[in-house]
């Protein structure tokens, strides 16, 4: 069995149950520690799989460039909660596949927080952004969905308000909400909705305006240097 598969099994059948068992005994906001620990443990198999297959230099550098573009997408627009980072992560997933999408999402969340400040939300952000990139890569792989601006815009909007946004709101629930019951969870999701909506609109705009030119550029590079021919996509 591959190392990363063993790691996945250990995480799911040993680490997470143990964390849940001890986490339930912690007083106070112990559930925050438990939740964050599980989020970090869930990311371990992804990172292990990436490390385990010893990525080639080309792949590393291309992912680094996509991360930098995503971070630029967070920094370039000076309106709060209206950032192009989601769209660029999703486009990376669409162009280079689910695994690259996850890596670009997780790494750009982590790296951009060195500029914006790390916080208790960092692991959640990494997971949510990574999950967004992975979902995009999965849905558009092998021509499952056509790479048309309108399709990508609708996908980006739905993925932002129904998938990435709510995942981010979960960190808010564990971090800020005092009593976890249905009332407070619904209140947290409702209060997070306007933010998710504005992010979703930004994603739609970026997808409609820049997705096609950007994907054309990526396709041209892939053709020119003969990438995407191997098993791993790059």
């Amino acid at each position: 069995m591959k190392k990363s598969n063993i790691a996945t099994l250990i995480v799911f059948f040993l680490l997470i149950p143990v964390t849940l068992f001890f986490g339930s005994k912690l007083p106070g906001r112990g559930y925050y520690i438990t939740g964050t620990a599980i989020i970090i443990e869930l990311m371990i198999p992804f990172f292990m799989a990436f490390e385990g297959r010893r990525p080639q230099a080309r792949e590393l550098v291309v992912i680094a460039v996509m991360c930098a573009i995503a971070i630029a997408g967070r920094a370039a627009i000076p309106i709060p909660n209206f950032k192009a980072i989601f769209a660029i992560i999703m486009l990376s997933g669409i162009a280079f596949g689910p695994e690259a999408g996850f890596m670009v999402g997780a790494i750009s969340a982590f790296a951009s927080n060195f500029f914006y400040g790390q916080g208790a939300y960092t692991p959640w952000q990494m997971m949510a952004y990574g999950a967004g990139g992975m979902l995009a890569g999965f849905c558009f792989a092998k021509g499952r969905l056509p790479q048309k601006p309108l399709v990508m815009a609708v996908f980006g909007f739905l993925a932002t308000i129904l998938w990435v946004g709510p995942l981010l709101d979960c960190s808010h629930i564990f971090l800020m909400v005092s009593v976890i019951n249905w009332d407070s969870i619904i209140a947290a999701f409702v209060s997070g909705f306007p933010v998710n909506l504005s992010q979703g609109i930004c994603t739609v705009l970026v997808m409609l305006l820049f997705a096609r030119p950007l994907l054309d550029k990526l396709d041209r590079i892939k053709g020119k240097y003969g990438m995407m021919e191997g098993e791993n996509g790059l």
Partner: protein
Amino acid sequence: MWAAVTGKTMRYDAFSKCHPAVNFLFFVGAIGMSVVIQHPAYLLAGIITGAIYYLLLNGKKGWKTILGLLPMFMILTVINPLFNTLGATPLFHFGSRPYTLEALFYGAALASMFVIMMLWFGCYNKVLTSDKFTCLFGNLIPSISLLLVMVFRIVPNFIRKTQQIIGARKSIGKGISENATTKEKLQDGGTVLGSLTSWALEGSVVTGDSMRARGYGAAKRSSFMMYRMTGTDWILLAVMLVLIGATIVAACLGQFAATFVPAIQLAPVSWGLAAYTCYLLIPTALHIKETIQWHISRSKI
């Protein structure tokens, strides 16, 4: 006094000069415990020590953040009784739901936890810079660390290149004028983004090939370590472990126990508070020790 010693731009901090592992472990301990402890005495200790170290790191600017946390604290405190209706003494009724004193205190405790976490994360951001992080995890996750290092290099490179592209477009008369419409601005932005992407990706493939030609991936990579565990680091590590061990023992003995709803019950304050406070004061103590030493050695000259 410290400002005079450290100068205006670069703030000297003794704890930041320690080995990254010591820094990282300290913050794991401080932030981890701040989430679990909800006894008011310990919360107060956490807020005071966190604020002191935050101010040492940030100087006068730090006050702004700390005062900015106050409204956050108030809001989180006041909101709690709306969701948590348990408690013996209702202050008033909000519709049919009671708004209780106990839930209000509980809200204050939870809000304090949040403030402590924000303060320590603020310090974390100042102390554990990106180079320290990659140094710490470079051996454990070599590819991802390399990825991070490359991202940190590319971002400033991008900003420079973007300005070059805009300048080049301007000089051939393709730049946007002062009173351009939104559509023109967007189109221009798209073109700049497109050429930036092309340039960056082509460059990245060339870089990748060059790395491969120079033997990247041929063997296990060793990494350059800026930091070395010194005697002070080992002593600090030992002190930290002893103090955190004492705090955990105190926690197991029930010294941190505090229930707010339905009735407020607090465990009596005991030696656990001393251990916890000493642990949180480690960076501040180092800072003060270093400053005093500096003054003594300077007065000898």
